[in-house]
């Protein structure tokens, strides 16, 4: 099926279910080693007892960009088999995530757009923890191109 046909099959409101991610000190360590972000916010329990201007934390926190990466995984893995290309993600963190939390990303298709040269899907994306608290929110944008960017 072509990318156009796949695009036409998708409906506003379609749900994209992400897989849960269990956060631990080990996943935080692995994230740091893979990304080179060794900020003590993610490792130093003593340091985290201090206050950060107007912000306070009860333990080390997960890297905010772990949210970003999980949102990216969720939409990218859904798009690729359909011929869709993940074009953009904008996200912000609403609540800190701590070791022991289990976070799950979910996305929903918001209105589709067709421009002179492209077919575009927008998504509202959220990540919630085990208590249903939303920890990150974002908007993603995908293109359904005739030729995949980077195709060889």
């Amino acid at each position, binding site marked *: 099926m072509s990318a156009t046909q796949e695009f036409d099959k998708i409906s506003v409101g379609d749900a994209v279910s992400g897989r849960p*991610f269990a956060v631990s000190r080990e*996943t935080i360590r*692995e*994230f*740091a*080693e*893979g*990304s*080179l*972000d*060794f*900020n*003590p*916010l993610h490792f130093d329990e003593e*340091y985290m007892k201090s206050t*950060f*201007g*107007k*912000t306070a934390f009860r333990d080390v926190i997960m*890297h*905010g*960009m*772990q949210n*970003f*990466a*999980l949102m*990216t*995984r969720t939409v*990218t*893995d859904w798009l*690729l088999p359909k011929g869709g*290309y*993940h*074009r*953009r*993600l*904008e*996200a*912000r*963190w609403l609540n800190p995530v701590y070791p022991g939390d289990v976070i799950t990303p979910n996305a929903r298709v918001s209105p589709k757009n067709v421009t002179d040269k492209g077919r575009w899907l927008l998504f509202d994306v959220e990540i919630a923890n085990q208590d249903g608290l939303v920890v990150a929110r974002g908007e993603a944008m995908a293109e359904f191109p005739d*030729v*995949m*960017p*980077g*195709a*060889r």
Partner: protein
Amino acid sequence: MTELRLEDFETDFWKDAGDRRTWDDLVPGEERETHPVTLTKAVVAKFARAMGEDNPLYFDEDYARATPFGGIIAPPSIHILLMFACTGIHDWMRSPGTINAGQSWFYNIPARPGDTITMRGTALDRFIKKERLFVIHDNVFTNQDRAVICSGRGWTIHPA
């Protein structure tokens, strides 16, 4: 040699903390000091695994060769690593307590193992809001053909 070796990077962000520019020192619009890095399959795989990725497109050359990409690519989120890989130990983003509040990125083409990536980055703006010190950073990553891989910006909150 620009080949990226993750084990060569300093992991103690307190070391050299005094040499980094603080919120007060940052000049909006001034280019950050960066250096190019060359991605390897090992780095892409380690990064992808650390992000929670398990799509064989990032790990398995035989699988990836049969996709439209014709070989392993890096996950779109590779800029998470490149922000640190292309900047040095004195870059302000490594200041302990720098809190990331959110980011936005546009993806042009995938980065691939073997690509030599160059970063252009600035602290585009700084401001105070609700008693917090903010910086907006603005970045573009290009490959050896000067093609844009991705571009994006982020909001950071800084220690007072």
